[in-house]
């Protein structure tokens, strides 16, 4: 990146802070739910507007930089809007707007307790997510990463039932040690090279330390970010965390938190180590195989789940590994595919979770075997669900196909045909665990059902919007946010080639 | 001559210390502690520290002893060790 193209701006900082500043307002209006939700929505819209307003910069290849202050000798607490970070921020902030609307419908529909804590934690999570997206160096990244870990905890144990508490413990006992691995790896980096600013193509070179050191460092990094990214065998907190309210599962466990983990993998492979060094120390195969095995096994496990959200959780585990695989393969196309899947999987999976939540609010059913005929009761919801599941299975015309296509192309370019095979197998498995749901919902009947009807518009509208987004992006991936251009540009920056 | 005195006082002080720690009667122990302090004061004086000896005699042997005795009267007089 041409240094002349970077410029100072406080806009990224405001994008991070806006939801943080909303927290006191949310807490202060504890007794007045309408006012409280107004703050949430306002913060979500402002955040989205701020992030969206940065799109022209990113498309022109200019990077906004915001150094806040020194946080450790020689290391700034700094934000920088590069293309890859922007992609993640855009996904998170746009989907937060929809999730906020949906959340209001959900928590009122199920009459959740402690809604103030819920909305405050949610705002905190989003601040941390945008911080992760825009972090300019490793230490800033770690700080926001840990804040995200912590802010998610109250959401996971929100219901405060024994199951939810156990899920919370499981979540912490996976993520806290992972955070420590990340801290250790970062500290190691700091004392090895001193300057830990992210650089496309990596700031570590083979000269700074022995190959063994670099391998250990890489393993620590992957352990650190891999837990959130759900790489097997570090994934099992994610199905457990489905004890959380559904909007949390939707935004955090399909978009923000797990994508933060995947984003971390992308940052580590692309901006800390870089393709050349990873090829040299030869660890990319380990990562690629871990990802390949994860998405195959996760798909198999998903088929055995009767609980809808748990099935979606295993599906998430699998799809996250697609992205990791793309990152590990290190070709231009596979990186593009990864970044596209980062965006597209979000729109599809959030649709599915929204649907699961809508069904739960109306019928209090969580198991697929109880959902016979539900499609005729809640046609919009289940239609959206069908779109999302078709997309995840990779049916052309929906955005999931485009990202998978790139990933498949990438694995061929990297001469790793075996992963192409795995991708295809997993696509079939995806179809195998999603289609029965759709089939049961539309083509089986259950006489005992009362007439449920659709959930409140606050829930149906967001899920319809995300489903339509999935369809539109499947046909015209460059519409609106220039998703395809962004992914190409980010991949090019890492791979050092031209788009 | 002076060295001989020093040695004698030292040995006496050590003896007093051992006795003070091993008498079962606490009152006796306190009195022997006073004796120890007094011997220490003599030692200081023989060793040339006149004012320290003076101070030790008043404070160590006198005041501390009195404080111990008062406390022992107010609490238990016998000790198991």
């Amino acid at each position, binding site marked *: 990146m041409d240094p002349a193209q970077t410029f100072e701006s406080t806009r990224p900082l405001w994008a991070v802070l806006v939801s943080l500043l909303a927290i006191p307002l949310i807490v202060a209006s504890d007794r007045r739910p309408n006012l409280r939700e107004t703050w949430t929505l306002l913060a979500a819209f402002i955040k989205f507007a701020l992030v969206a307003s940065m799109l022209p910069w990113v498309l022109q290849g200019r990077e906004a930089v915001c150094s806040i202050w020194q946080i450790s000798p020689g290391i700034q607490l700094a934000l920088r809007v590069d293309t890859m970070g922007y992609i993640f921020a855009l996904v998170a902030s746009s989907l937060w707007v929809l999730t906020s609307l949906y959340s209001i419908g959900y928590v009122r529909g199920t009459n959740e307790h402690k809604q103030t804590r819920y909305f405050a934690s949610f705002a905190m999570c989003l601040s941390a997510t945008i911080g992760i997206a825009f972090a300019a160096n490793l230490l800033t990244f770690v700080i926001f990463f840990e804040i995200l870990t912590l802010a998610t905890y109250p959401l996971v144990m929100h219901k405060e039932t024994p199951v939810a508490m156990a899920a919370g413990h499981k979540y912490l006992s996976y993520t806290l040690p992972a955070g420590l691995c990340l801290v250790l790896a970062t500290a190691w980096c700091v004392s090895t090279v001193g300057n830990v600013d992210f650089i496309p193509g990596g700031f570590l070179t083979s000269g700074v330390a022995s190959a063994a050191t670099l391998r250990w460092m890489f393993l620590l990094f992957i352990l650190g970010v891999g837990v959130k990214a759900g790489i097997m065998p570090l994934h099992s907190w994610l199905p457990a965390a489905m004890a959380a309210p559904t909007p949390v599962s939707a935004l955090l466990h399909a978009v923000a938190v797990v994508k933060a983990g995947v984003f971390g993998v992308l940052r580590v492979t692309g901006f800390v180590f870089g393709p050349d060094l990873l090829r040299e120390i030869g660890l990319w195969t380990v990562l690629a195989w871990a990802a390949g095995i994860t998405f195959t096994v996760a798909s198999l496990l998903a088929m055995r789940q009767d609980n809808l959200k748990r099935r979606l959780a295993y599906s998430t585990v699998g799809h996250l590994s697609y992205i990791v695989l793309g990152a590990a393969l290190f070709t231009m196309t596979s990186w593009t595919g990864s970044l596209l899947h980062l965006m597209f999987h979000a729109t599809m999976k959030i649709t599915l979770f929204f649907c699961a939540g809508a069904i739960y609010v109306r019928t209090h059913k969580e198991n697929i075997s109880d959902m016979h005929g539900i499609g005729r009761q809640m046609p919009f919801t289940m239609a959206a669900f069908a779109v999302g599941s078709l997309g995840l299975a990779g049916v052309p015309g929906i955005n999931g196909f485009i990202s998978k296509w790139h990933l498949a192309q990438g694995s061929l370019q990297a001469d790793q045909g075996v992963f192409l095979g795995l991708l295809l197998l997993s696509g079939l498995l995806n179809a195998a665990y999603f289609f029965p749901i759709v089939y049961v919902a539309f083509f089986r009947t259950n006489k005992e059902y009362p007439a449920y009807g659709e959930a409140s518009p606050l829930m149906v509208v967001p899920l319809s919007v995300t489903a339509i987004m999935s369809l539109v992006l499947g046909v015209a991936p460059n519409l609106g946010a220039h998703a395809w251009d962004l992914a190409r540009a980010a991949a090019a920056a890492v791979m050092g080639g031209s788009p | 001559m002076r060295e001989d005195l*020093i*040695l004698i006082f*030292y*040995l006496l*002080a*050590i003896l007093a*210390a*051992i006795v*003070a*720690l091993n008498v079962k009667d*606490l009152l006796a*122990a*306190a009195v022997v*502690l006073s004796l*120890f*302090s007094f011997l*220490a004061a003599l*030692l*200081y004086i023989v*060793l*040339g*520290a*006149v*004012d*320290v000896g003076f*101070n*030790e005699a008043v*404070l*160590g042997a006198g*005041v*501390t002893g009195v*404080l*111990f005795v*008062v*406390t*022992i009267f*107010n*609490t*238990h007089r016998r*000790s*198991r*060790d």
Partner: protein
Amino acid sequence: MSEALSGLLFDRWPYLLTVVLLLIGLYGMLMKRNLVKKLIGMNIFQGAIILFFIVHAYKHGASVPVHSAVLGDAPEAYMNPIPHGLMLTAIVVSVATTGVALALLTVIYRRFGSIDEGELLRRLRDRE
């Protein structure tokens, strides 16, 4: 017998005896179970440390550190007065510590009816 040991035995025996006192005091402080005995040990311990300083300040053939017309101004004629000054303070400190300790001890006796450490620790572990 090594030279160091003989030096310790014949030239520096006051230090040796001071260490003996020190160990006696330490034994009393740590091993005795009765709190009064512990305090007696503490007093002996502090007395030994004071002795250590005073023994160091002692010079054979020198006089008490008070200026006298007969001896004149030669520093060799007097013992080092600085440790003496320090030890004055140390004695007062040790008496103050003993005083506070005895006050605590009285309070303990009034509340627990015992000044035996084993007994007190048992009471301390009791949950009420």
